[in-house]
């Protein structure tokens, strides 16, 4: 099948380069930021520092993984931040029964929100952005109704989940990595993953091809909700407190940014897990750099804007003309 005659060499090389940039622009960005930091930031090259960055990025990454699935199905999940809040409320409320039960209930809360989102999208046909917007507003309210104010978490297992490590790698990081591998596996190797991409690319075609569109969509939002709930648990463990008011604020935007910067198009039909990880890391490193150099908030915001645009610009689908 390789009967395509190729043009001049240089052209191909340039195409290949563009292609690489398009696919691995984020990774390049991460590398550049690392190098810059090593050069200009004191105390950057230390295990402690990398640990800090990894631990801080873990919850965002976990949320972003779910978001990547939602975006891959041509949807979006704005409720993730509120699900984190709900999860932390539930966790704190049920911690009296022991961590595992509380954790289970917290995740179930996320699943419940996911089922609602999914049902609104799949059965009623509400647009994902609006459906999840409604749950974003209501979810945080609910979290605060359940737990009106910040509450300390003293459970020792939770504390060790937040700060303990295995062979020097914090549990949080291990969990995030494991979940990333899991999601990558699901996307690549399972029927669910394939069907999700087909639905995201062309819903009518997927429907006529007999795919269980509704089931897949509901499952997508359930995954997103569950992952956000897990992120809520992780963040709670790290803070050793449940703070439904501020936990997960603007998380939906961070997660979407990570996913999109990582090269997953918002138009659906494609999920890049590795890119999502790199996207989350890129944003984390950027904020870290700006904070470490004590730049004022105005700078931070403008720099973030610029980096986001650069990243998606590099990864953009090049002109069809």
């Amino acid at each position, binding site marked *: *099948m*390789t009967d*395509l*005659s190729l*043009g001049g060499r240089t052209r191909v090389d340039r*195409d290949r380069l563009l*292609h690489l940039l398009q696919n691995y622009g984020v990774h390049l960005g991460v590398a550049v930021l690392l190098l810059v930091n090593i050069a200009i930031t004191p105390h950057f090259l230390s295990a402690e520092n990398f640990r800090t960055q990894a631990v801080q990025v873990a919850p965002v990454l976990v949320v972003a993984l779910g978001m990547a699935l939602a975006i891959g199905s041509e949807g979006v999940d704005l409720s993730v931040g509120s699900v984190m809040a709900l999860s932390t409320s539930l966790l704190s409320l049920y911690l009296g029964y022991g961590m595992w039960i509380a954790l289970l209930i917290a995740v179930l809360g996320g699943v419940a929100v996911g089922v609602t989102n999914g049902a609104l999208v799949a059965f009623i046909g509400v647009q994902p952005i609006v459906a999840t917007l409604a749950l974003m507003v209501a979810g945080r309210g609910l979290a605060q109704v359940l737990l009106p104010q910040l509450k300390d978490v003293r459970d020792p297992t939770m504390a060790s989940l937040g700060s303990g490590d295995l062979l020097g790698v914090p549990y949080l990081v291990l969990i995030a990595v494991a979940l990333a591998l899991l999601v990558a596996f699901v996307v690549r*190797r*399972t*029927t*669910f993953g*394939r*069907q999700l*991409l*087909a639905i995201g*690319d*062309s819903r*009518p*075609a*997927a*429907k*006529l*091809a*007999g*795919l*269980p569109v509704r089931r897949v969509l509901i499952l997508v939002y359930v995954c997103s909700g569950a992952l956000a709930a897990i992120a809520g648990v992780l963040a709670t463990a790290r803070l050793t407190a449940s703070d439904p008011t501020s936990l997960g604020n603007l998380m939906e935007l961070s997660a979407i940014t990570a996913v999109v910067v990582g090269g997953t198009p918002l138009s659906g*039909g*494609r999920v890049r897990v590795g890119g999502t990880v790199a996207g989350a890391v890129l944003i984390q490193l950027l904020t870290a750099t700006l904070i470490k150099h004590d730049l004022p908030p105005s700078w931070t915001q403008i720099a973030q804007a610029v980096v986001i645009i650069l990243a998606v610009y590099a990864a953009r689908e090049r002109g*069809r*003309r």
Partner: protein
Amino acid sequence: MLSVRGLSKTFPGVHALDGVDFTAHAGEVHALIGENGAGKSTLIKVLTGVYRPDPAATPGTGVITYDGSEVEFTTPLAAQHAGISTIYQEVNLVPLMSVARNLFLGREPRGRLGLIDFRRMHREAEQALRDLGVRVDVRRPLRELGVGAQQMVALARAVAVDARVVIMDEPTSSLEPREVATLFGVIRMLRARGVAVIYVSHRLDELYEVCDTVTVLRDGTSVHSGPIAELDRLRLVSLMLGREVGDVRDEGLTNFSGNHDTEAQPILEAQELTVHHQLRGVSLAIRPGEVVGLGGLLGSGRSETAKAIAGALPPDSGRVVVAGAAVRTGSTPAAIRAGVSLLPEDRKAEGIVPGLSVRENIALAALPGLSRFGLVDEARIDRVVDTFMKRLRIKASGPHQRVGELSGGNQQKVLLARWLAMNPKVLLLDEPTRGIDVGAKAEVQKLIDELADDGLGVLLISSDVEELIEGSDRVVVLKDGAVVEELTGDAVTEDRLLRAIAAAPATTADPRTRGGDDD
């Protein structure tokens, strides 16, 4: 009038055009033909500013000359302003906007203060369509029209401007004989006016009927150019295929063999299917090993019938029975589980998943069968994909090319492969050969025959009367959403079919009798 020399166009990984020479003169109808993927649509898009040609390797080539001077259109708008109007291959209008707005987009009649004069616009739109024999409420959204009527709107749009070149990329693929006749009338009128018409079609009869000159493309290069009268059909086909005349003669032009066994019990029975405004108690039966044709005019409800059977259109009442068991209606998965597969009419919107690869597209429906415990079995998929890509001669740079990048005909083959991979009991084919080149068409027809021989029940919807007659063992004729006649045995002739269709005055797309279009 319009000519190119040594034009090339490369897409990542594909050399769609490779030094094409082409010249269209004023007052002639110039046929542009070639196999699927030969580059016809690409050439048209380059000519009209949708795509930019590759920079020329040698000076003097790769340029477009229009009206004696070198031009470079950067947008379709620029080409339109220069007097080139185009009907692109896929019906390309805005479904949610009204018919009139589609017709006049960008050149609305304006009254005082530069605001659009809707009254005039509607009047003129109605008139323009009536001239083409289409009577619709021009205020309604375009999407409520059938594909054919939409095509006529596109035609009206193209000829409404004072164009000096009119390009038509497979305009007849979704038209009925009557509309085709109207279209030819329009073309002759354009020719008389001194307009250069560039005409793409896979239907050879049409070419001989209206075209003066022909250019044959093969693999992105022009292999022949000259008056069409100097070529006989066989020669034309052999040029397209790049094979010797002798080989082509052996294979023939249509590829249906004789009849099939029609004695067995029906494998599929549709009973009294009714869909509000669309179908009125349609019943039909398909026996294993039989090809049932579904005839009728544009908008007679053929696609709806197929969709209702396949679960894609929930009927208000009626049953579908497959192999003796009733199938839950309104559910595609249920129909597919029962062994009923539909090849949809609207390939672009409802068939292919454009962003996924050829491989994923072929395996899509069969995935559950090609996986264990929800994990896909890559090796088995590779085998299946390989088999079908070879068997259907799917022309792609490899199994991993995105389907959206394939030519229309190859996309259709991918869809066929998707369903064949499912081993269905009944195949519902809605315009299976629309936009497919002769070579592939013959193969698809042969395939349909083979499938029927293997005991598959086939429902064939085709606007190509010849295909319908030759391919079907039995033809069910629909009109206004109801069965009006069934032709069996010797009665399956073109004459009988046309008479059945023409039995009552046919109106095209009367909005009053129609419900929602396919979703």
